[in-house]
């Protein structure tokens, strides 16, 4: 059986500089893919290339055996990407932000209240995002992931700005997602302790 998310021979240039060359992987449900490498090694760019934001010099990313370039909308409907920047509006409240996100992609059965309780940000509901700490904003981005009904999670440095407790929570959530048959691609420069089948791509 072909992997759900696969990539072959990905090569990307930024201007004259080659960020990575010949990167490939195959990811099935229940598996975690970790992109390793020091800062500036192109982890974020690789992630952007996977979601189709960057023009690859060479290589194909496939979703269910079909190139994502040919089914962009289907693929984007199957993923949530927690980028380096949370990508939420600072002037809107937590609920307004999440309600907006909900209109964009398929939503799961969990209701907002439960998810916010779980992430321990329920009491921050009426506040505009700009009055939240960086760590709290991260948790709102996690709520966006939990609320969406998508198989593929992409997380760029999910542990930044989180305390020990927060990091444990992220690992727990990812583990649950994988156990339900989801997939996760994670860029991280520190060790990730998740009890699940792990694949790695190391960038120089």
């Amino acid at each position, binding site marked *: 059986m072909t992997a759900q998310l696969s990539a072959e021979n990905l090569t990307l240039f930024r201007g004259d500089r080659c960020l990575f060359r010949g990167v490939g992987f195959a990811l099935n449900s229940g598996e975690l893919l970790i992109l390793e490498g020091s800062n500036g090694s192109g982890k974020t760019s690789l992630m952007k290339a996977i979601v189709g*934001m960057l023009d690859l010099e060479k290589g194909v990313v496939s979703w269910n055996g079909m190139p994502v370039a040919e089914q962009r909308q289907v693929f984007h*409907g199957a993923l949530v990407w927690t980028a380096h920047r949370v990508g939420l509006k*600072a*002037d809107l409240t937590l609920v307004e932000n999440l309600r*907006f996100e909900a209109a964009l*992609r398929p939503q799961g059965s969990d209701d907002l209240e439960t998810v916010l309780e779980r992430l321990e940000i329920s009491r921050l509901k009426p506040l505009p995002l700009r009055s939240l700490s960086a760590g709290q904003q991260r948790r709102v981005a996690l709520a966006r992931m939990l609320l969406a009904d998508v198989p593929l999670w992409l997380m760029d440095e999910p542990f930044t700005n989180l305390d020990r407790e927060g990091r444990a929570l992220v690992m727990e959530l990812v583990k649950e997602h994988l156990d339900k*048959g989801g997939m996760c691609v994670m860029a991280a420069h520190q060790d990730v302790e998740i009890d699940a089948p792990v694949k790695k791509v190391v960038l120089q």
Partner: protein
Amino acid sequence: MTNPERHMPSMTSGLLAVARRDLLLAWKRPGDVLNPLFFFAMVCTLFPLAVGPSAEQLTFSGPGVLWVAALLAMLISLNSLFISDFDDGSLEQLLISPQPLPLVGLGKTISHWLTSGLPLVLVSPIVAITYRMPGDVVLVLMLTLTLGTVSLSLLGSIGAALTVGLHRGTALLSLLILPLSMPVLIIGANTVSLAAGNETYSAGIWALAAYAVGTLSLAPYATAAALRISNE
């Protein structure tokens, strides 16, 4: 794992959600809406000061001055169309949402028109009266401004999408948008002048309407392409 009744939001829900969100943001930051209006009023004040306040002068140059001022005010408001979304990363999120990007961009443009074009149309009669424009001509002015600002919002969204994320984006945006907007200015201002001179002006209205429909059907695709390129 995905639930069997997993339903994808409809095509237009992204458009509506984006438009609603931007309107909400504008509501929370009224300054962004008011500044172009103040600018419009001020430019209209500059002209009588520069060329003289005689009634004849004002009726003659009124349509042109109002139109130029409206065009510049639109230009000012266009600067911020994509910048804040670009800065906080929500533009990236829109690019990878399962919604068609032309419609997402259109949603932003609609909200832009509602918060900049429409207020200009509504404020223009006040300024027009000070320029001694008769009532029926004011109506023509409002009609041309309505159709014209729709085109300007749409054309402007292309320019804003092309320049988002560039250092010297502001000056560049004017350089890109002003030549593109010349047909709108020419037809809009002269239609009002014709109406003021009691001549037939319907051709101008039709031309503006056709131009608005044309940009409405083409500009969203150019904006979407430009947004993808700017975010590479």
